[in-house]
């Protein structure tokens, strides 16, 4: 049985470079002159006290015109009395693709409308990907992302964990819609 001779399939077109381009070294020098020219121009402006590149010198400088829907740093919203609105249900921690949220729950028997609350709520900004899933997953509007992103970088990974009180307090928000019903009758059941 005869076999068809093997022919390599061609997926790409042939290059159409001119001789000048194929000579390589001269094209390299041309490319270097473009980037070098930009570098020298920016450097010259910087030396004479003007702003050269369009990039921002983050974190010393931050943009003032972030879009309103920019997903920046997280805040934990506050209840009317200043405690976290969070119920420590761990939905945000569960949905987080970077698994960078860790919550320790605590029980408050004296607060029947809010018996479970976070005694610790920590986000690792060295791993956070700012996807906003935590905000979407939250059933209580307890975690939000605001457009600003201050104080994120650090020279030490351990310093990039943001704790509960930082998240609650760095930009306090407490316009929660939840109502807090009165404590039920201590003797047992009954209609409201």
């Amino acid at each position, binding site marked *: 049985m005869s076999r068809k001779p093997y022919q390599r399939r061609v997926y790409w077109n042939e290059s159409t470079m001119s001789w000048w381009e194929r000579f390589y070294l001269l094209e390299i020098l041309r490319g270097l002159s473009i980037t070098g020219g930009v570098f020298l121009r920016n450097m010259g402006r910087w030396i004479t006290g003007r702003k050269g590149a369009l990039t921002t010198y983050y974190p010393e400088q931050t943009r003032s015109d972030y879009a309103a829907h920019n997903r920046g740093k997280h805040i934990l919203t506050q209840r009317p009395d200043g405690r976290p609105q969070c119920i420590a*249900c*761990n939905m945000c921690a569960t949905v987080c693709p970077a698994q960078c949220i860790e919550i*320790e729950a605590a029980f408050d028997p004296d607060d029947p409308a809010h018996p479970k609350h976070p005694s610790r709520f920590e986000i690792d900004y060295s791993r956070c990907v700012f996807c906003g899933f935590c905000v979407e997953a939250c059933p209580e509007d307890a975690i939000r992302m605001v457009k600003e992103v201050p104080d994120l970088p650090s020279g030490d990974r351990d310093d990039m964990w943001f704790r509960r009180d930082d998240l609650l307090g760095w930009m306090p928000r407490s316009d929660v819609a939840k109502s807090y019903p009165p404590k039920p009758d201590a003797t047992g059941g009954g209609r409201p």
Partner: protein
Amino acid sequence: MPEIFINGQPYEADPDQTVLQVALANGIYVPYFCWHPQLSVAGNCRICMIEEEGRGVDIGCNMPVKAGMRVLTESEEVRSHRKAILQFITLNHPVDCGICDKAGECVLQDYHYEYNGSPSMSGDPKVRSTKFYDLSDRIVLDNERCILCSRCVRFTHEISKSHGLGIEQRADVSLVRPSTDGSFRDDPYSDNVVDICPVGALLSRSFFYKARVWYLTKTPSVCPGCERGCRIDIWHRKPEWQVQSLDTGENTAIARITPHENSEVNGPWICNKGRDLARIFERRRADGAMLKGKPASVAEAATEARRLIKAAARPVALVSSWGSNEELEAFRASLGSMFTALVKPDHLPAAGEVLEDDLLIRPDKNPNTGKARELFGTAPAVIPADADLVLVWGEGCDFSKIPAGARIILLGSWLAPENGHADVFIPVSIQTERSGHYTNCQGVVSGFEACFPRAPGVADAEALFAQLAGAAP
């Protein structure tokens, strides 16, 4: 053997079975809340609706098998009944799954998504009731979540026989309440009601708000609390959910313990002592070998122990009744010929502990005494006065009974004042760090697996025995 037809397929049935049992035994799932394989039929949740062709819909858990009967488990009528019943069951359910420890393993949650899926049709406010009612110092009851299936009540009447729970009042203000004589508080099996509760109404204090259940995984194990050797599942954090910033001790901690259902030993039940094994395992560990109280490496301590064993004229070994079958056999193979081996009870019954009952609890509070006695004889653990070397493996040795001149080699796991008195102390691994088997009082062998990595600086007893015998360097 009557033959019945479920969804058109013929199935062999036992005459005293119900249709629900036949369906479940043949892999046809029928939802149920109040029915439990080990409890009597209550028939109050009404979710296990099955349609008998030509006769209409009735509950499957109380439908006796008749030869040639034809039933449907997924007909349109059954589905609409289930949906209506779920609407009724969730009428006053608070749906506070976010703060409910049962969420993730809750049957009501599963059934809602599987069979209902629509929000409540009721516009009335939900009946509010007691939350966090202390049934005992171990169990919290949330009456709002309770669906009054009465499984817990039937458990205390039929299995534990403490008659500790009942239902008070009626209609939508019914409440599960403990009996006033405190018999539920003293029920040594009370925590089983947490497992059999189909919703999050009964919750364990020791697991309360500790972790969401989907962060946990279970490892099959054996309870070392008594010679019954009940099979258990030890729940601990999944590797992908290990915490980094919170208390990292949680990563190697026992979150909770549940029965590992089996027909040979303990069925679906365990006693409360089995739930509290963390109190035994999570005592402060001995973390380094010692020579007369001075820190040493395990290798140095093993060398010194080997020297003592070689030099001894009348060595005696107190063998642990907490050792696994594998460890006990390794001891006999390596050191059995050198020592007069006596089996020692590591744990004696604690004050106030239930000694024995007709359900599970046995008087010997050690898991493997039977196997140890089979290998090393039944002589009592009395150290002869002329012993010049005593090897103590495990806990429960009274050091004042050791002859004054005798040298002591101690293999222990937890911090104890005796550790420093021994000439050689070598820390060994605990049950949650190794795998093995125990043989229980009925002769049934049950295996346990390692949940956590071995603590640093701790030896594995099975390998250590060969080392002490001089086989390995």
